[in-house]
């Protein structure tokens, strides 16, 4: 995160790391809002029974995955390192957008799957976009905040999974009673 912000610092207003950080967070919010609205729109576009059927199938696959695999299905990569070479606003904007989308980089936790599945189940583009924006603000905004305070969280992923994995299974299963009446 610090690299993304510092590399975005060039001339003019981008001499400010605050502006670069703001671009990063706003881009993340934009990417997240688009992803959330798409999921919500997709849910609204199909009949409630088909939506429930698709969601139940996806939830079941995700629960099975979480029950057997500690590492989620993911694109195990970071954002494109070539973006760091731009040394202008694009470094922050591209990285923010990719991190806001979520699925184009490492997600790390099964709990992430609740976000698109619940967004789809809401069948409301605005609510889904708002939920995704909460994710972007927490994911990228918190990173930027911690970076600005020179606080770095390294490791701890195994300990974090001890909390997030049971929560992921519980949250995914909590969707069943919502979806079942629609079938």
């Amino acid at each position: 995160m610090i690299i993304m912000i510092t590399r975005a610092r060039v001339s003019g207003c981008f001499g400010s790391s605050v502006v670069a950080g703001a671009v990063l967070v706003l881009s993340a919010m934009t990417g997240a809002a688009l992803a959330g609205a798409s999921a919500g729109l997709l849910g609204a576009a199909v009949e409630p029974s088909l939506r429930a059927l698709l969601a139940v199938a996806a939830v079941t696959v995700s629960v099975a995955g979480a029950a057997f695999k500690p590492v989620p299905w993911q694109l195990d990569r970071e954002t494109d390192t070539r973006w760091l070479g731009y040394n202008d606003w694009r470094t922050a904007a591209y990285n923010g957008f990719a991190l806001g989308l979520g699925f184009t980089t490492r997600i790390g936790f099964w709990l992430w799957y609740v976000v698109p599945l619940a967004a789809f189940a809401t069948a409301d583009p605005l609510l889904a976009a708002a939920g995704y924006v909460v994710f972007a603000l927490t994911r990228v905004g918190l990173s930027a905040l911690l970076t600005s305070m020179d606080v770095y969280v390294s490791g701890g992923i195994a300990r974090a999974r001890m909390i997030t994995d049971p929560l992921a299974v519980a949250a995914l299963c909590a969707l069943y009673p919502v979806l079942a009446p629609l079938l």
Partner: protein
Amino acid sequence: MPTLLTSPRTRPALALLPAVLGLLAGHFLGLQPWALLVVAALVVGIAQQTLP
């Protein structure tokens, strides 16, 4: 505990309790998808600070 959580033998058994609790919570508390979305978004966003 991390070993227990990553073992293919114990992991499914450990997932049973949260699965049942989730089902019960969804049924009796009437949890809505948007509420699950927001809570999951908050928690996973915080947890992702530990990503390498």
